[in-house]
């Protein structure tokens, strides 16, 4: 049985075994690359590994206890020798990366190692990554880098060759459900539904299980292919979906934005009612720019999520065309889906999947989300019904 810090990593037995090997613990490699599909627990794995390396237990086999000072502070992201770097924007800024390089040269203060965890290393531009090259190749004696990315191909080949690669697998639905039941106290049947609906993405599964509104929103999205039957309905649904995503991003950020603004006001010695003097406006502009960038990322992520859910629906429809006994992603909608699959051809499902892919590519290319969604939803209308009389 693995030590406590590994418990929240669902279905990654091989990885846990490799990382908690005594030899790895005593003389770890200086740079690691954690890869795996989103939601498989890349950053969890990196943190847990950092915990086992820094754990205060004497006995090597006991390290990763989850209760000592080091383990607790790493879990909270406040350990003095463990920098956890993440971005809420679409991309890392090069200046943030430069700062890391100088941090890497500090000696550890309380722990055994200085550990720098970079989440979503794929969000680094090539220019930013190049800043890291030298630091990763020959870090100071007690510094360890941990990078995470969806796949090894997402980081530069020069980075890949300087790191030891740890690949996380897609966890089984069963494992994710068990984690939800055990850790978050979710009821078993709901946990299964959510684990399947999220396609084994642990974070999303937990979010769905905990929030009835999120489930409702998801159901609305997966029902779209079955409800869109005319051009006007498709355009209207695209508008609704776009608004839904925007509201979601807005709701999650508005409180935080206001709090950030008032804290900035306070640190500049102003009260809420003061007009900001022109000389200080630059600070507020910078804050607003940051918030806009964050908001863009939130919309981007929410749209991406919606696209994944939609491709899940067409995957299910294809499954129903090809065989009857494979598990569906949207098992809870099986009757609906079976009924609908009789009306559409497998070819239509494939072309719809292609439309979803095209829409994702377009979003990445900065096409207005509304336009990309309209083109996608119009492609969902089954051929026979598209010829409906005016």
């Amino acid at each position, binding site marked *: 049985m693995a030590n406590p810090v590994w418990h929240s990593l669902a279905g990654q037995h091989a990885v846990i075994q490799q990382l908690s090997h005594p030899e790895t613990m005593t003389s770890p490699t200086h740079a690691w690359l954690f890869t795996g599909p989103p939601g498989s627990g890349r950053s969890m794995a990196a943190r847990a590994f950092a915990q086992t390396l820094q754990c205060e237990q004497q006995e090597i086999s006991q390290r990763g206890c989850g209760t000592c000072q080091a383990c607790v502070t790493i879990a909270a992201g406040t350990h003095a020798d463990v920098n956890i770097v993440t971005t809420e924007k679409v991309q890392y800024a090069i200046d943030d990366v430069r700062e890391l390089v100088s941090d890497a040269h500090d000696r550890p203060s309380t722990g055994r190692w200085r550990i720098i965890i970079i989440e979503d290393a794929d969000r680094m531009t090539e220019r930013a990554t190049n800043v890291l090259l030298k630091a990763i190749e020959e870090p100071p004696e007690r510094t360890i880098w941990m990078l995470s990315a969806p796949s090894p191909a997402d980081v530069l080949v020069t980075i890949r060759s300087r790191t030891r690669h740890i690949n996380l697998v897609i966890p089984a639905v069963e494992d994710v459900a068990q984690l939800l039941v055990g850790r978050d106290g979710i009821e078993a049947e709901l946990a299964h539904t959510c684990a399947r609906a999220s396609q084994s993405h642990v974070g999303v599964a937990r979010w769905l299980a905990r929030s009835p509104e999120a489930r409702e929103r998801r159901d609305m999205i997966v029902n779209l292919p079955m409800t869109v039957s005319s*051009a006007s309905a*498709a*355009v209207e649904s695209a508008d609704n979906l776009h608004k839904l995503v925007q509201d979601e991003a807005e709701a999650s950020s508005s409180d935080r934005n206001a709090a950030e603004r008032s804290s900035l006001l306070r640190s500049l010695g102003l009260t809420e009612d003061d007009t900001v003097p*022109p000389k200080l406006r630059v600070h507020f502009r910078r804050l607003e720019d940051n918030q806009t960038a964050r908001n863009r990322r939130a919309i981007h992520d929410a749209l991406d999520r919606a696209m994944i859910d939609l491709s899940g629906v067409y995957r299910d429809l294809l499954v129903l065309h090809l065989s009857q006994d494979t598990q569906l992603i949207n098992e809870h909608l099986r009757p609906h889906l079976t009924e609908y699959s009789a009306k559409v051809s497998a070819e239509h499902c494939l072309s719809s999947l292609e439309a979803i892919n095209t829409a994702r590519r377009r979003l990445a290319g900065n*096409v207005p989300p509304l336009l990309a969604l309209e083109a996608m939803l119009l492609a969902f209308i089954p051929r026979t019904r598209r010829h*409906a009389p*005016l």
Partner: protein
Amino acid sequence: MASPRRSKNSGASWRDVTVSPLILVQGGEEYIHTRVTDSVKAQLKKAEPDTEIHHLSAAEYQAGELQVLASPSLFGEKKLLVFDDMHKMTDAFVVDGLEYIQHENPDVTFLGLHGGGNRGKRLLDALKKAGQHIEAKPIKSDRDRIEFLQAEFREARRRIDTDALRALADAIGQNLGELAAAAHQLISDTQGTITEDTVEQYYGGRVQATAFKVADSALDGQLGPATALLRHALATGVQPVAITASFAMKARQVARVVDAKLSQGQLASALGMAPWQAQRIMATARNWTPVNIAGAIELIARADAEAKGQARDAAFAVERMVTKVAGMAGRH
């Protein structure tokens, strides 16, 4: 305006600005600001070549600057103080400005440029009362533009036919600076009366084309005019992405009505537009079937992605979209 002697504080025309200690130009037309500044500068330099000129921004004004600059100098040279951005003036500027009006220095010309709005109303009112006030309202209507051109030619003592004026205004469009530049080119390059033929020779074939006009004619199925408008729009600096954006908007509206079973009144409220706009969209939608408009939106989305970097030639991508969309309209 009929009386030959204008009272000092009326909204005088910017063309006959004269040097006086206090001048206020108010309004959003920046080109007029530039012209007034140039004219005042030229008049001062003519009278006194050593005039000192200071250009300052009222938006970054700090207390006391005005009094320092406007204080009498040892040799009594003339000075011109130009204050830009008065519509963003600081509070200190209002205070110092009001103070200065009380004790103006006759050797100094104070020229304030206010971009419109009401900021610093107290100071504006005081300036209007004490000095020359010049309106610089943005020129919007066609009639005003033609009047502007007429005055340009009159100032240069040149004759131009009415038809020629209209042709010139149509060809150049909204921007006052561009209108003036075109007028000055005709004035310096030609001799005698300017006729429509002269304008045709210089600016023939130029048409004002906006992205919306291109979208309107393409979705109405007018292939030829749409292509011509597109070429004009691209040639006069309309960005390809602006064209795909206006196509997307128009096609969205058409798709909303193409197979919706709503009355015209319901439609107008569902689309959030005025009844006449809804009617216009309904007329366009008659050219379209649901299948065709779906195809058109797909083409527009593709062209938008291409114009934003997925293709090497944005102009080509947009032109292909325009011809295909215009070709699809009206095909049932």
